[in-house]
């Protein structure tokens, strides 16, 4: 019996050895295959299709309903607004030829182009604009943009004068309104009488833009084709193929394999793409700033000297180097160097000075004991919260924690899941359940940051730090009433100065974006937060 078992074992051993040999041969031959594949040239690229990656499946292709960036990058190619933002961050005419503002600054008259067709051949006119605004104002529409067209509780009225002339009549003077007229216009003839929230239009939209919608395969891609009757000229590239690639690492591989034409580059990968054989690297400031915000209702932050001490203890240039690998700039005001509203004087910051921090804290009555500062027996410290999933903010929080320890502050970091984070920050209670926060605000071209700084926006609103300064309130109101850009700039410069002096936030940095684009792509506009393809109809491929 034993013998037979051993024989069986031998047999199995034999099979096993054979198996090994086969495996080895397979590996060898596949290696050969790899080698031949390695030497093969990449396939010739098609010149009629631009491949622009989407980082997520779009949610809904309706510009008044969508809130995600994937949807808006598709919508930007399909729809137009009355005005558009150009590469210099200026508002320029799009569907409107021109506009005038009445002397009382309440009536905006737009003269529309009469040569614009919807993708289905129907002519675009003023009624489409009226329809779009009215749909937006309808409470049944699930949009978060309604308030943009409601001024102090009263909606903006639209009056059609003739087919190609219309007026927006504001209930009161409100200069941030002009940027709102870059709103994408929807076709009335296709959407009138439908439930805008669930219309099939939202999955196969029809616009006036340079590209018309062709196909959307959920989770796979969106495809567009050129609009032969585009008012600004027939686009130079026939098709746009937008594959959905969520993983940024995969996107990078796809870019390097020349499977897509454009991808953003994470800062640590940037060096590989400088002087790359077939990819150009571009960089520009994002329209945003990152900050450290103090809950001004908390006892510890009521003393300005404590806030100033923290501001002086943060080495912003070092932060930019460590967190952004140098791709960014220390921030000083709640604006962006790209915007017209950015103040000319830039001596508003708090220079890095640990000795000054220590002096300020001493003046505030804190004594050093066992390496930590104390006052009346309580240790000086706070909890710093930020949201999970943003490595830059987490890293920033850690660096702040370390530097503040140098001056004797005990900082604890709490990284929270986004919705828990929002729940804390947006809770209607006073004081809110946080001490300090690392967060970023994205900016638009419009400097009116009423919801962030006005005292009426606390506790409900985005002024969650509880900032209150009557002068700032007054300047915010004044900024809304002034329509001339130069005068507005002066108003906002005063406001920024007041805010910086009060230190509700320590402004940390303006980050930069890095983008890699295949060298075959031509006709780009200059790099900026609106991207390099602001005139997509001029983009063409040349191998």
């Amino acid at each position, binding site marked *: 019996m034993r013998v037979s078992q051993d024989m069986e074992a031998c047999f*199995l051993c034999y099979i096993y050895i054979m198996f090994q040999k086969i495996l080895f041969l397979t590996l060898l031959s596949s290696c050969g295959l790899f080698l031949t594949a390695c030497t093969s040239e990449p396939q010739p690229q098609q010149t009629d299709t631009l491949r622009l990656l989407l980082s997520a499946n779009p949610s809904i292709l309706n510009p008044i309903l969508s809130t995600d960036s994937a949807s808006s990058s598709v919508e930007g190619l399909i729809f137009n607004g009355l005005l558009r933002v150009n590469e210099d961050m200026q508002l320029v005419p799009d569907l409107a030829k021109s506009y005038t503002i009445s002397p009382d600054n309440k009536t905006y008259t737009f003269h529309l182009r009469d040569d614009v067709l919807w993708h289905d051949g129907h002519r675009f006119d003023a009624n489409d604009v009226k329809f779009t605004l009215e749909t937006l104002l309808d409470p049944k529409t699930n949009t978060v943009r309604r308030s943009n067209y409601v001024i102090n509780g009263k909606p903006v009225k639209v009056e059609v004068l003739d087919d190609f002339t219309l007026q927006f009549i504001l209930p009161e003077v409100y200069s941030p309104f002009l940027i709102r007229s870059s709103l994408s216009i929807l076709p009335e003839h296709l959407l009138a009488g439908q439930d805008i929230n669930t219309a099939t239009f939202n999955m196969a939209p029809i616009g006036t833009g340079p590209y018309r919608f062709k196909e959307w395969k*959920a989770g796979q891609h969106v495809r567009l084709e050129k609009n032969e009757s585009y008012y600004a000229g027939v686009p130079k590239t026939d098709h746009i193929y937008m594959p959905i690639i969520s993983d940024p690492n995969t996107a990078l591989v796809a870019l390097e394999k020349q499977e897509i034409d454009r991808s953003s580059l994470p800062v640590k990968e940037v060096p590989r793409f400088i002087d790359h054989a077939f990819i150009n690297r571009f960089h520009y400031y994002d329209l945003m700033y990152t900050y450290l915000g103090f809950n001004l209702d908390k006892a510890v932050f009521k003393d300005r000297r404590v806030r100033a001490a923290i501001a002086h203890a943060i080495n912003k240039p070092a932060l930019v180097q460590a967190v952004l690998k140098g791709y960014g700039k220390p921030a000083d005001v709640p604006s962006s160097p790209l915007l017209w509203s950015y103040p000319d004087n830039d001596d508003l910051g708090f220079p890095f000075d640990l000795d000054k921090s220590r002096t300020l804290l001493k003046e505030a009555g804190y004594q050093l004991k066992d390496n930590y500062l104390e006052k009346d027996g309580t240790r000086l410290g706070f909890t710093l919260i930020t949201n999970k999933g943003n490595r830059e903010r987490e890293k920033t929080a850690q660096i702040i924690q370390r530097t503040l320890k140098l001056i004797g502050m005990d900082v604890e970091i709490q990284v929270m899941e986004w919705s828990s984070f929002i729940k804390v920050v947006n809770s209607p209670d006073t004081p809110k359940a946080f001490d300090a926060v690392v967060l970023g605000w994205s900016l638009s071209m419009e400097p009116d940051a009423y919801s962030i700084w006005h005292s009426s926006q606390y506790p409900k609103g985005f002024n969650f730090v509880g900032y209150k300064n009557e002068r700032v309130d007054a300047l915010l109101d004044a900024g809304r009433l002034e329509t001339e850009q130069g005068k507005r700039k002066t108003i906002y410069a005063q406001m920024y100065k007041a805010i910086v002096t009060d230190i509700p936030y320590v402004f940390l940095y303006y980050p930069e974006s890095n983008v890699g684009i295949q060298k075959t792509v031509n006709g780009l506009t200059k790099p900026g937060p609106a991207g390099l393809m602001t005139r997509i109809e001029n983009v063409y491929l040349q191998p």
Partner: protein
Amino acid sequence: MIFRRILGFIPLIFGITFISFMIMHAAPGDPTMMFVDPSVQIQDMAQVKANLGLDKPVLVQYFFWLKEIGKGNLGFSYVSGQPVLDLLWERLPATLLLSVSSLILILCFTFPLGLLSGYKKDSFFDRAVTFLSFLGMSLPTFWLGLMLLLLFSLRWSLFPTFGFIDPFLEDASLWARAVSVLHHMFLPLLTILIGGLAGLIRFNRFSIIEILSQDYIQAGRARGLSERRLLFKHAFKNAALPIVTILGAGLSGLIGGSFVIEYIFSWPGMGQLGVSAVFARDYPVLMGSILFSSILIMLGNFLADLSYSKIDPRVRIR
């Protein structure tokens, strides 16, 4: 009898959906909380919430949901406004293709390998299989997937980096499209296989070892049955029993898809839909997929029990 068990599913489904609904609403956040942008006003969020019926008590919301389910309506996504059933349906083919083929391949590999390695316990072969399967189990999927992408796609240009099918093949023959799908499927499949094989091989090996040490095998051996007969006729069937249970429980996984795999390889499956619904607090889509998978778990267990009774005559369904 079978009918009675199916009837028993109904209260279970009520229970599962009720509890999931409550847990979902207990989690912080709601669909409008995702729009934190200084240009968005609180009153707009409140209006959207009211439009979606989210301002009503949770219990009332649950009954509304149930009522619609009764009418065969899974509701509309809060985010995209599309019917939930459509959203789930369009994700199903890619998910099923990947999960079913990986399951079949895993079965084809695990049974022989587990059997052999259990039978030859402590041999060099067994040790090698054990080592490799531990390696397979311990490699994190997201890392493995990326490494395979770097190697097979970027370095060697053997397989495409992303997607399900070459989008420019829409007019091509069925054959060409099938080849394209297989080509795209290779890397995700390989990643799943390396992780998936390992566990089941271990399981199979263990159950073979256990069965082979039982008295009836020894008795069979004493009576002079050939090893092959012993192994394949007498041991294999019994060793397969626990695997059937595992597979039954895993049936819902076939539909659920794997988020990590889908994320890395841009595979248009259910996993991505589910995870993005969680982040967006898209309750109808979440409830739809929970309903789907709970039905499948029950069905899976039921099928496992049925096949149990086929394999093992001692088991009878009552």
